[in-house]
């Protein structure tokens, strides 16, 4: 009882601290807002104050939680209460992409984007029912620990450790890119400096206190990010619908989007070409109208060529359906079918449950009972943001269809002009080129000049494009219509492309813009934008923290301690863990500097890779006693190979596809292969030892026995080391 009392007291104290922090954050934001509106505090000051204060806080928590105890360094002393572990998992999970880009993805994809919303939440059901209680019962330090102990010997551990490092390193690099972008956009420091400042914030925290510091920082980061996410959209909802709960009121936005899309003739209907009579509806609410293309691959390879000065031939640009080809040549039987949506949702769910940095969070709770509850809290806290993201997207879509599309470019709302200037919104009407230097064309127009679709005839020789007083005329050359408008001519010059009115097809919006521009659309002061920046930083840094712990423990614990030197002292292990943390951070920073588009795409692939490697092996390890080491290795290698093969083939050539499933959902093919191989090879080889089968029985019972587990995990490894 005395123990329970002490735990209760500690939980109350924690709730008090974080409650005070929440109130403090709100009061601080109000004061900053008042200073901005009342005393005209400059924007740069506001931005810096928010940044310094939040980073200072993370450093403070890091210093307060510094530790030299191994259990605290790797698994936060295994005494994080369920609710707080839920918040920490939420922050760990929600990355820069969730916070800043997801609403923009939904804006662009409409219903089809909901695969991400369902996938990244539904995965937690799998985690709760199939993994979390047993991971806690196992009670070691890393996921390779589990794979290595359950399947015996060093090879399964090695394969698992390498998978964990590859997945986590790409993921952490994407976070570092996010940090650099947020810093440069809001504080105005160069991107490279943003990367360095952000990373030092991560390091102060995780270097001193490992998982313990990371956990308590993540709780604070969750609070910052969720408040920052909720405020702007609440005001936007109030402004557009007069009702301050966006999650309930965006139905009205959806209605208006559908109406405006019909009025603006964006909503199209086409018959499927397979003779089934299926109707494919375009637009925001109708489902399954996405095509396939390899534009991402072309961009990524061109960027690599430019940055590294190499010469890889990019694949020939393709998109399906290709409107320039006659109908029968196009392979689009899958258009309007749900298969890609379902496959993507499934891969994201299964991948979520198989990601090491989320799984290790369930080592840190005190008991199996708390681990089950903790997944519930984690999903609840994640749910708050994912429930809200579609509201951001719908309001932005409504606002843009209502006040931006079909309007004269000279009279667009101010926020559109501001974000166009930053290059996040592109307006492809050729009248916007008036007065531009010919050798400094925007990125959308330059390739058209190269390909000959756009010709610039600098009649007065001033090096600028002059369109003043120009009128449109059209002639036919070789059966193609060629337009002329002032000093511009070419096939891309048409009546609508030079009318000074922004058509929907002429508008291109960077996914990040939706969340970032919402404070401005809602007419909120800059303080709110600074809060958003702090929230985005919190999302990126908290995820980076969790990932760096996975990488450093995979090296220090699995490679060094478990495989190379099982006699290493506790001090050596902590010291090596800290060193690896810095090394991983520096590598992530170096990878982040080129800002490769490929990195963001690799993160999306991580889910398919986790789904076809870790997920089946951990699942069978718990639920099927007969599963053995050779089966697990065969499954992981086979599953991953099939996934990588489909991924690569479809990525470069979208006409390679099964039922229109994209490379992002390639795991749907690898995962069954993993299960099947694991089953067949396990059946063909000897059953695992009695000791391992007993271990599985132990895992299934919720009575905690950390010492016994450690002796099995350690004993097995010591034997394997000889």
């Amino acid at each position: 009882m005395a123990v329970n009392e002490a735990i209760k007291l500690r939980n109350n104290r924690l709730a008090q601290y974080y409650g005070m922090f929440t109130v403090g954050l709100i009061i601080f934001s109000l004061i900053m807002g008042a200073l901005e509106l009342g005393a005209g505090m400059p924007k740069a000051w506001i931005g810096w104050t928010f940044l310094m204060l939040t980073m200072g806080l993370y450093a403070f928590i890091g210093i307060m939680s510094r530790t030299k105890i191994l259990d605290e360094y790797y698994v936060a002393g295994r005494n994080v209460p369920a609710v707080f572990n839920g918040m920490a998992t939420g922050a760990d999970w929600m990355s820069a992409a969730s916070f800043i880009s997801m609403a923009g993805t939904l804006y662009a994809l409409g219903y089809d984007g909901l695969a991400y919303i369902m996938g990244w939440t539904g995965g937690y059901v799998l985690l709760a029912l199939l993994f979390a209680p047993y991971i806690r019962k196992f009670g070691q330090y890393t996921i390779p620990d589990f794979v290595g102990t359950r399947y015996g010997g060093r090879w399964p551990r090695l394969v698992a450790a390498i998978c964990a490092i590859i997945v986590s390193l790409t993921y952490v690099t994407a976070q570092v890119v996010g940090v650099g972008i947020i810093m440069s956009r809001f504080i105005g420091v160069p991107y490279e400096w943003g990367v360095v400042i952000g990373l030092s914030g991560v390091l102060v925290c995780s270097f001193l206190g490992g998982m313990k510091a990371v956990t308590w920082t993540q709780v604070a980061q969750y609070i910052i990010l969720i408040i920052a996410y909720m405020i702007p959209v609440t005001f936007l909802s109030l402004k557009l619908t007069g009702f301050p709960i966006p999650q309930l009121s965006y139905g009205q936005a959806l209605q208006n989007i559908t109406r405006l899309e019909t009025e603006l003739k964006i909503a199209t209907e086409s018959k499927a070409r397979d003779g089934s009579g299926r109707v494919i509806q375009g637009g925001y609410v109708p489902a399954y109208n996405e095509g396939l293309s390899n534009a991402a691959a072309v961009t990524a390879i061109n960027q690599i060529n430019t940055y590294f000065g190499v010469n890889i031939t990019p694949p020939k640009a393709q998109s399906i359906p290709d409107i320039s080809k006659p109908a029968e040549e196009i392979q689009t039987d899958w258009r309007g079918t749900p298969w890609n949506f379902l496959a993507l949702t499934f891969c994201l769910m299964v991948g979520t449950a198989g990601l090491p940095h989320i799984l290790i969070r369930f080592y840190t709770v005190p008991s199996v009972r708390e681990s089950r509850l903790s997944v519930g809290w984690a999903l609840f806290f994640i749910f708050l943001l994912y429930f809200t993201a579609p509201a951001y997207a719908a309001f932005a879509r409504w606002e843009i269809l209502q006040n931006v599309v079909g309007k004269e470019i000279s009279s667009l709302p101010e926020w559109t002009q501001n974000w166009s200037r930053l290059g996040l919104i592109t307006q492809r009407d050729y009248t916007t080129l008036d007065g531009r230097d010919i050798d400094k064309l925007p990125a959308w127009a330059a390739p058209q000049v190269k390909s000959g679709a756009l010709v610039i005839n600098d009649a007065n020789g001033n090096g600028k494009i002059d369109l003043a007083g120009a009128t449109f005329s059209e002639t036919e050359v070789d059966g193609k219509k060629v337009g002329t408008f002032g000093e511009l001519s070419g096939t891309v010059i048409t009546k609508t492309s030079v009318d000074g009115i922004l058509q929907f097809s002429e508008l291109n919006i960077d996914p990040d813009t939706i969340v970032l521009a919402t404070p401005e659309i809602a007419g909120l002061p800059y303080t709110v934008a600074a809060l958003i920046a702090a929230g985005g930083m919190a999302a990126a840094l908290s995820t980076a923290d969790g990932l760096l712990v996975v990488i450093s423990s995979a090296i220090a614990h699995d490679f060094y301690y478990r495989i190379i030197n099982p006699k290493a002292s506790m001090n050596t292990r902590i010291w090596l863990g800290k060193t690896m943390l810095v090394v991983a951070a520096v590598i992530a920073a170096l990878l982040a500097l080129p800002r490769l588009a490929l990195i963001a795409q690799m993160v999306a692939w991580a889910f398919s890779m986790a789904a076809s490697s870790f997920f089946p092996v951990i699942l069978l390890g718990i639920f099927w006693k007969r599963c053995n080491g050779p089966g697990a290795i065969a499954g992981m290698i086979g599953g991953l190979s099939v996934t990588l093969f489909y991924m690569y083939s479809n990525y470069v050539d979208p006409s390679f596809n099964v039922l229109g499933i994209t490379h992002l959902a390639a795991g749907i093919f690898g995962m069954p292969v993993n299960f099947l191989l694991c089953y067949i090879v396990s059946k063909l080889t000897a059953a695992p030892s009695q000791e391992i089968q007993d271990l599985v029985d132990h895992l299934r019972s919720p009575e905690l026995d950390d010492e016994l587990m450690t002796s099995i995990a350690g004993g097995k490894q010591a034997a394997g080391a000889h």
Partner: protein
Amino acid sequence: MSDIANMSRQERINAYWKENNRLIAILLTIWFSVAYIPPLFVNQLNQITIAGFPLGYYFGSQISLIVFVVLIFYYAYAMNKLDAKYHLKDRDK
């Protein structure tokens, strides 16, 4: 209840595991139905509107998410009862 008291530890764990698996199967069926059945009929469901939300869209963006959260908390609750039934409580509780 009396037969549980007479079971050996291994028997209790086996029976507990069986019940656990049955619960998991039921909850995963609900999970699957909510996540993967409505998308098959999304355009038909969208004909129905609730508070401005087309129902197909509403399933993907809200209903399924709420069901996911409830499923996990229910599992935690049901398993606590199961732990007690088979006398397999955590050491520190």
